[in-house]
């Protein structure tokens, strides 16, 4: 479904991603783990078209997308829920969700159905439809960001740090929702600082350090890997 080949991204002269390759197959959850500044967010921002790679290819559903502008990429079914949530702060929950469906060309009826489905996934948002998004709590904003990404009816959903900065309870809820999306068959590319949870969900996982993939395997494999346990799961 998604194939990333030798992707390189630079900010000016500083190369942040130094040749990354991986694939995501339909129905899979693939996770990228690694420390701050390793290049995970840069990778996602490049896949969604916010950044332009200096080299390499991104093939989505058989077609190269690495030179398309961001607004074309979401139309092809690659949705990105960005790090830091980035809800539109002075718009209502409803308007945020409407914008999530902006790229869609299908009918209002299908969009309304997805709207209901999104709100079923996050019932809190239903009561807050007319509330301005900037006044939601962090966890609610995260739910809104995810619901908004789902409104584009993506074939592949990219979630960047969905649990970052949330209370432990809220973190559990968000991760449970990711698990539920997985159970529904949603294809997900997940970047998550809670490596334990991410690896528990992942069909396939990659460890990124300073812009390179240093280790790959299935979720359980990496969960059992000694160096991963030391570096990312906080074990001695």
């Amino acid at each position, binding site marked *: 479904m998604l194939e990333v080949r030798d992707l390189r991204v630079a900010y000016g002269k500083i190369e942040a991603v130094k040749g990354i390759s991986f694939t995501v197959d339909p129905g899979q959850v693939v996770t990228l783990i690694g420390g701050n500044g390793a290049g995970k967010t840069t990778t996602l921002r490049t896949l*969604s*078209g*916010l950044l332009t790679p200096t080299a390499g290819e991104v093939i989505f559903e058989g077609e190269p997308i690495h030179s398309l*502008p*961001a*607004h074309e990429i*979401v*139309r092809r079914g690659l*949705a*990105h829920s*960005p790090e830091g949530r*980035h809800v*539109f*702060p*002075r*718009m209502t929950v409803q*308007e945020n969700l*409407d*914008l*999530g469906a*902006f*790229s869609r060309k299908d009918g209002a009826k299908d969009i309304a159905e997805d709207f209901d489905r999104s709100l079923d996934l996050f019932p809190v948002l239903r009561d807050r439809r007319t509330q301005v998004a900037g006044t939601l709590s962090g966890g609610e904003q995260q739910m809104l960001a995810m619901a*908004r990404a789902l409104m*584009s009816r993506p074939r592949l959903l990219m979630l960047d740090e969905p649990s970052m900065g949330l209370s432990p309870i809220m973190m559990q809820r968000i991760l449970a929702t990711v698990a539920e999306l997985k159970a529904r068959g949603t294809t997900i590319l997940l970047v998550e600082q809670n490596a334990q949870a991410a690896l528990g969900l992942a069909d396939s996982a990659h460890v990124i350090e300073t812009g390179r993939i240093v280790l790959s395997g299935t979720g359980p494999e990496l969960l059992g890997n000694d160096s991963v346990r030391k570096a990312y799961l906080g074990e001695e």
Partner: protein
Amino acid sequence: MQQFLQQLVNGVVLGATYGLIALGYTMVYGIIQLINFAHGEIFMVGAFAGLAMYSYVLPESMQGNPFIVLPLVILAAVIVSVTVALLVERYGYRPLRRAPRLAPLITAIGVSIFLQELVRLFYPGARSQVSFPRIIEGPNLELGGVTIARTSLFLLVVALALMVALQTFIRTSRTGKAMRATSQDADTARLMGINTDRIIVLTFALGAALAAVAGVMQGMRFVSIDFRIGFLGGVKAFTAAVLGGIGNITGAMLGGFVLGIVEAMTTQYLLGSAYKDVAAFVVLIAVLVFRPQGLLGERVAVRA
């Protein structure tokens, strides 16, 4: 009391023009955080384009009929202003989108001088004032002792209608939502599938169209224009935008009306007409010192 009401009416009419121009400043700032100092010149170019339509295109037999003249003059003004604004955006500002903010600001000042000189040198007679047709003739209207020129009444009605239409468009239409999204978070707007370049172009076009209408109105009210009207009109409209809260559309309209009224009142009661332009600048300085976020603007918090 009658004098006060008269000045109030004068101020509101004056403020309507400021408000129309201020909308262009505030919308462009809202989308790309650029103070488009060439916007005053877009207003001036609109006035000249309208005049050119009247003087050189319309046959003399039609010049007396405002129902033919007005739409055509305004149309010409809008087309030329929008075209110029889009060229400036495409070749002046867009290449500098990622540059430090000072670069497009300097470009704006350069464009401003360029447009002034272009009109001064190439519009026949524009080295000094050129006369502008009143278009709407007829005696002034009297309302409870307050006099209002037909042109002014027309200006007010058109300005208010345009402001309401703009607000409705931005609040309710799909494209309006996309504009608001782009102004709040451009990168995330792109992730929604919004072509932000197109939104920026549309914003410049809308602002220019409103300024063009204001340019024609200004010409009709003062029955003369010159290549410098963009400077003063621009600075005052900029003041109105800052007063209302830069980036805030309702604020720009409110700021326009407040500034117009302040100017009319100070002229009448405080300083006299020789100092009428001083009021605007006093307001600008006062706002920047005491309430830099403007009347309706939010304090911009620095977020982590």
